[in-house]
Each structure stands twice: as C-alpha cells, then as structure tokens.
C-alpha cells in the first residue's frame, strides 16, 4: 500500500512538472509584450520596454521558465499586474467560492446519480428507466451554457421566481446565505454532472448486477433492497469514484462556463477575464492549479479505490 502510494505520488509529481512546462510554453506562445497589454495602447514604447525589463519578460524562454519554476517551488505563482495582486492571493480569494459552488454541485450530483444509476440498472428497460435515460441523454448532450440559458429562461425570465444572476457577494458561504441566488448555477453544474455520472453508474451497476455474487446474496434470502445497499452499491460505486477523479477537468470547465454565464465571482470568471485581458500570470497560475487539482483528484480517487477495494491492497 505504502509503495503504491509512493509510486502514485512519484508519477503525479512528474505529471505536474510536465504540466508546468506545457502551460508555460503554450502561454508564452501567446506572444506580444506583457508590458503593452498591461500599460495600454497609448503607453509609450519606453514605458513598455521599461516594464518588460523590470519583470524579466525580455529574457530567453528557458531563463524565464526556470525562474518561474524557482518561484513555483517557493509557492509563488506570480503577480498579476492587471489586478495589482499576487496570483496566490487572487486564487485564494476566489477559491472558496468556486470550491463551494463546485463542491455543492458535485456532492449533489453524486448524491443524485448514485441512486439514480442503480435504480435504472435494477429497473432496466422499464418506462422509468427509459424516461430517465432519455433525460440524461439530453442533459448529457447539452453544452453547459445552453443548460444555463434554458434554466435562466424558464426560472428567471419566464416564471420570474429565481434571479438570473448569481449572488455578487464576496462571501464564501453565499450558497447558504442566499440559496435562491445560487440555485440556478448549482443546478446547471449539477445537471451536466448528474447526466454523466448516472449514465456511468447505470452501466457500472448493470455490470455488477450480472455478477454471480449478487445472485448468491439473493439466494441467501436478502431482499433486493438489502442486496443493493449491502452488496451492489459499494462495488458499483468504486468505478464512479475513479470517474469522479477523472472528471475534475470537466467540472472545472463547467465551472468556468457557469461562473461566466451567471457572473459568479470565482476562479472560473477570474480565468475567463484573465483570458480576455491576457493576464498571463493568472492564466498560468490557474491552469497549473487546475492541473494539480486534476492530478490530486485522480490520485485521491485511486487511493479511495485502493483503500475500499481489498483486491488492490496487496501491493
């Protein structure tokens, strides 16, 4: 087990290093002088040159990468000159709200998808299953923004019962203090995630239902409900755990879109604005953090599976 963890940590570290190289090179490829972007169109050439020199943007790519890496190793993600704050601070300020939004959506999605998928598997090809399958197919085929717009149209513009915008408050806990304002963003993010998870959960549960041990459990005299809760659920959820780990990039992407559609101040909006402002350090910083989150998510999922699946505990 320890060996497995160490090995996974090792590969994760390599992956993160690779990510830093790729994102750095890609963002560098966006070309142009950061100074010009920051100082504006009417700034003098001297001012731009002075700015670029002061911040090392006139050095070679390799030198820049290594100084960036050096700062990274000290936990310094850089400084956004557009927003006059360190990237660390910007990410820290916004992380709470994003984590709250994405976290609540994820929890909801899992809480809905797990029983839903199992239900569909148990009642496969029933009317209920077919209706749910169709619904999940639609949700699964719907780009996030379209779902968001649909919800806005129905609940905000049509029925007028929910606000079209997320709360603009800076509090991390708006979801609890202003649940009405957060309902649509959470629903949107939950919607697409549920579609993905429940489809997967359904087929995982189907796979497990076909296993002999289910029949054995039935033969012991367990009711279907007990068979599901005591035997099927754990085995059918292990693959879902792995999937959750793997879908973190999707969740972050969905989060980006949801935040920009609903104007929810968080990391996604920060990234999107930075993209429009060419705010290089913020882009780099958040991409890297998102990648690390992904790597960690996968790692965590693997560990959870390893811990809860006795078969993998040998190593």
């Amino acid at each position, binding site marked *: 087990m320890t060996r497995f963890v160490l090995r996974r940590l090792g590969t994760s570290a390599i992956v993160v290093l690779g990510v830093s190289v790729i994102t750095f090179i890609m963002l560098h490829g966006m070309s142009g002088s950061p100074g010009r972007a920051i100082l504006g169109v009417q700034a003098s050439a001297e001012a731009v040159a002075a700015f670029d020199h002061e911040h090392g943007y006139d050095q070679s790519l390799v030198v820049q990468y290594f100084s960036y890496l050096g700062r990274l190793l000290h936990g310094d993600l850089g400084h956004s000159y557009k927003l006059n704050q360190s990237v660390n601070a910007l990410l820290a300020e916004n992380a709470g709200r994003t984590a709250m939004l994405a976290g609540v959506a994820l929890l909801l999605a899992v809480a809905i998808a797990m029983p839903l998928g199992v239900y569909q598997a148990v009642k496969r090809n029933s009317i209920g299953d077919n209706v749910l399958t169709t619904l999940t197919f639609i949700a699964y085929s719907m780009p996030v923004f379209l779902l968001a717009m649909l919800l806005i149209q129905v609940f905000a513009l049509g029925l007028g019962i929910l606000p079209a915008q997320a709360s603009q408050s800076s509090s991390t806990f708006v979801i609890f203090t202003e649940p009405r304002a957060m309902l649509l963003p959470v629903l949107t993010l939950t919607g697409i995630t549920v579609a993905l998870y429940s489809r997967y959960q359904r087929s995982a549960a189907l796979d497990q239902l076909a296993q002999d*041990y289910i029949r054995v*459990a039935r*033969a*012991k*005299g367990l009711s279907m409900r007990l068979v599901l809760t005591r035997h099927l659920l754990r085995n059918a959820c*292990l693959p879902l755990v792995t999937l959750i780990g793997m879908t973190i990039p999707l969740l972050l992407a969905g989060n980006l879109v949801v935040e920009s559609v609903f104007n929810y101040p968080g990391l996604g909006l920060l990234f999107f604005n930075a993209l429009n402002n060419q705010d290089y350090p913020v882009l780099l910083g958040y991409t890297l953090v998102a990648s690390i989150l992904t790597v960690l998510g996968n790692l965590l999922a693997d560990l959870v599976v390893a811990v809860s699946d006795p078969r993998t505990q040998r190593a």
Partner: protein
Amino acid sequence: MPARTEGGTQLLAIERLSTSIRMRKSAVEAVTRLDLSLRAGETLGLVGESGSGKSMTGLSIMGLLPPGGHITEGSIKLDGRELTGLPEREYQRIRGNEIAMVFQDPMTSLNPTKTIGEQVAEPIRLHTGASQKQARERALDMLALVGIARPAERYGDYPHQLSGGLRQRVMIAMALSCEPKVLIADEPTTALDVTVQAQVLRLLHDLKDRLGMAMLLITHDMGVIARWADRVSVMYAGGIVESARTDELFTGMRHPYTQALLACTPRLTQRREHTLYSIPGAPPDLADPPAGCRFAARCAHATDHCTSEAPPLAPARPGHLLACWNPVEGPLAPVTDPAATSDKTSADPVVSVDDLVKEYGAGGFVPRRQARSVKAVSGVSFSVLPGQTFGLVGESGCGKSTLAKMIVALEKPSSGDVTALGGKLNELRGRGLRRHRRNLQMMFQDPLDALDPRMRVGAILREPFEAQGIGTAAEQLTAIKELLDEVGLPHNVLERYPHEFSGGQRQRIALARALALNPRVIVADEPVSALDVSVRSQVLNLMKRLQAKHALTYIVISHDLTVVRYMADTVGVMYLGKLVEIGSADDIYLRGAHPYTASLIAAIPEPAPGGQAADDLDIGSELPSPYDPPSGCRFRTRCPRAQTRCAEEEPALLTFDPGHSAACHFPLREPQNV
C-alpha cells in the same frame, strides 16, 4: 458410502414445471414439464449436457430466475408448501433458510469487497435474528465445519486471498449456515481441480448427513453422480428423460440418451486401442424445440412415433421413471472399433526439453528482485519420440501451458533449451524460426479465443499458407478443402464466421488450421476441456485418426486424467513447475510411484456406482504460492508421507521401470537399482 434412504418423507416435489425465458424476439423454454422429487436425507443427482436446463431448474426452485425468466406452469412444493407464486417477502424467508444453493463458480460468487466472515454471518443474522456476536460465533463454527483451519484468523480475509477450493468451502458454509432443509448444489466442483473436487464433494456429502438435509446435486459429470448420488434424474433439452436409483440407472438404464451419455463418458479403463463412443448431432435449440421426443433426432432407436408425440415420464418399474417410446435395456456394449494407431518407430526424439525454466517477473516499469517472480516452470526435462503422444497432467497453475508455449516458441525460456526437429529454438530467429514453425503447431483450449472473430473460416484456414508463403490462391483453396474433408466439415463453412459454430466444430476448425502446414508436432493445450462429453469424444477420435494418418507427434496437455490416459503413450505429471513423475501411461496409472500421482488418480470419479474413495490420499486443497515454492520437494506441504528430509533435500528422479521415473524420497514403490 452414501446411505440409501429409500422411502424417506418427500421434501421437495416438483410437478410439470415449465420455465421460459423471454428474449427480445423469442422465448427460450429452458425447462419443460419437469417432474422431480427429493426426499429428506437423500442426494438426487441431476445430470445432463450443457444447456439442458439444469441450472434453470435450480433457479426456478430458488425463485431467482434471470430477467425475463418466469415459471409458466407447474408447481414446486417444499414440505407441502407451494412455492410458485409465493410473494417475494415470504420467498426471502425461505431462501438461505430452508433452501440454500451453492453455485458453480466460487471465483465470482463471493462479493470481492466483503470479508468472508461477514458474508457467512449475513444469512445467520438475517434469518435467525442473531446478534452480531452470535452470528460471528455461528459463522466461525460453520467455517470450522467446512474444514477451514483457524477460522478466527481467516474470518477477516477477503475472497481474493483464498484459493478456489477454500472459496467453495466458504460458499458451502454460507449456504449451510442456517441449516436448510434442501441444498441445491449447481456444479459445485466443475471449476475446481480434481483433487479439490473430491474433497469438496465429500464435505458436502458428510454435511448433508450430519445436518439431515436433502441435496440436489447438479452436474454434467457421470463420475460424480455415480459416486455421490442416491438417485439420478437425467435431463435432456429441458425435461427429465429418466429417473432411477443410482445403481439401477448405471446398470439397467432404459433411455437411449442415458445409455449414450454413459457410453461416451471417458473412463480410466477405456482401452486406448478402441475408439470412443460419441453421440451424433447436437441438442435442439430450446427457443424452437422440435415436436415429439426431443432426443429423437439423435436417437438410433427413433421411430415416426417419436418425432410426432412426446413420451410422458412414466414409471417403468417401481422407482424408475422413464420417458421413451422405444426403451433400451442396460448399458451399451463397449465400442470395439479399433482406434487408428500409428506404427511406432523408435527413432530420435522429435522434441526434447532440457532443464527448462520460466520465471515471470511481476511486471511493471522497474525490474523486480528475483524473489518476486513467479516460478512457473522450474527445470523440466523430457523428450518425445516421433509419432507418439506425450501427455502432461497436473493441477491448475502448475505450469503446463507455460511449458507448452515454450515448446512452440511463444515464450522465451528463462533458461534451458527446447530442441525441436533438430533445431534449438533458442538459437533461431526471424526467417529461420518461421520456417521451423511449420512443423510445430499448437491447438488452444478455447477455440473461440484462438479464432479471429473477424475472419471467415476460409481466411482463417488460408492464413497458415499465407504466413509461410506457400502456394497460389488456387492451390491454397484445394488444400483447405482437403483439410475440411479431413476434419469432417462441409465445404460451405468457408464463408462463415467462428461464432456461428458449435464448440466441437470450432475445435475441428482449429485442428484443421493446425494441420494445414503438415506439421510433425502438434502441441494441444487442453484441446477438449471446453467441450461437452459427447463432443469431446468426437474430437479425441478425430485427433487419433489424424495422428495415425500423418504420423503426427502430439503433446497433449490436460487436467483431465482420463483424456491423457486415453491419448498418451508417455505421461508426465507436473506439480508446481516441476515434473514429478514420467512414464508410460500404464506406468503412471497402474504403477504410479509418486504420492502426488497416486492422489491425482485416486481423486478421479469413476462413472460406476459404488466407487471407493481413497481417503488416505487426501492431499488438502491449498497449492503453495508459485512466488516462493516450498524448499526441497515442492509437494511436501501436501504430502501424507512427507518427512524432514523432504524439506531439506530436493528429490532426484529415480527410475522404477524402463522409461518410468519419479522424483520422491519416499516413493510408493521401491525404485529399481540403476
């Protein structure tokens, strides 16, 4: 000796049970008007070919039919209580409590994420309302009862930590934990090695007696039936064709199917010079069953009456039920058609294996320490003479397949040499090796896996010629047609795909392919173990015939000792990567010197009632880990005769007869002085 409890109270009575499984377009009539009765304390054997509806009968009783499955008519009475149509809640109270079931595959029948203790305790808590502690106590007792040593230590183990035999014991413990009245054992030992099979069946039998249950023993193995069942019902295509006391059935059967089934079951006494009996044709499609007697199409005694009207199951004699218009009397006389034999020319060996070793690293990026490798084959030497058959037997995982792969150069040995047809395979590369392969072909266990599902039979059979660059397209086609004639398949199969054939036909195609290049040696790894008995004998007969015709040399691998006995001139017995005994078939089967050989042979269930179990040769079920095999003699951990010397010193091969040697410090016979 099974107790004969005639006239006990009728516990389970099934009348005119029909079960059908709805499919998308059709319905499979898995069970048709089946009658069965089970008395307290007896074992009823249910026997039949694959697909005859045995499992569906068991599942119907349990009320656990697969999706789409339902009982269309008939009744199932347990102790006078009707089970069909019973509400699910009440059925749950019966399952695991009054009727329990042991399933075929112990590897997949346990929940991989729960400890075995929990799984055994679960029905106890459920049905007896015991507290967690009480249930644990009871589960420990049950684990001890099924022969698991130190149950308290094993209680928290997960299924994957147990060997197949132990898992099946856990399954039995689970089934019996509430002391049910009826136990349904559906092929409880098919997935197990023959040594383990004997132990598990004995255990079931003893427990049945001890707990006073009745047992429905489902199997396709006449040997198992003969030894363990009090009464037998023979099933064919969804219905019972004959039912009688075991000894009566084996000696005085009346149904042609029973007769044929028994005739094609291989025995150790089968004379190698005679061909095997086989049943022509294949069982009917249950989605579209024929009218009349379902066996009529394959029956030698069938008349017009048989094809028009189905015979009812009626008493032929007291206690002997039969469904046949034209009954027969007693078993078929043994076939005496001479099996084709090749003239044995003693020449230089065609294949010789010299101190062959194969160790698999545990895999992965970084090379591991030596200790973590699987010692699959550890120093095996033998040689095979041209035109002869070399048989290789041993328990699962002992390295038979690995050895076979090295012989045909699919795997590279870690050390040692294979010399085939005068060339050292190690030294051959590329073109040379490819040319060499012509003479060295292989047949695989699972023919479906060995035939590319996306190729037509024509392309499959053409492939050897193309790979070797032999002949023009037209020549190839002629050769292919000849091959089909040889294996007895019509020419029109060329346009079909592998999945469109039955198992026996597929194995014929595989054999045709192996023959295509006119090889001198064919290595056959479990060539018939995936096949039903009736088909099995067809394939074995065919192999024999072809051997004689083409002067082939066979290396036949099987865990089925009767197959090896029938096929092989020389037999090697493998244990955990080592060859422990080698000799002529008679040497091994009649004069075995190694305790392991003896226990293997003793474990074979003979398809004749009243067989005596050799209890003194019980060798336990746990095969040591191939990662670190025992020191000295590898068999010592299971050997009834083991002494300290066995752990210290590795036994050398001692000669007992000419060409017969075994590696044992304390052999069953005195070795010859060399």
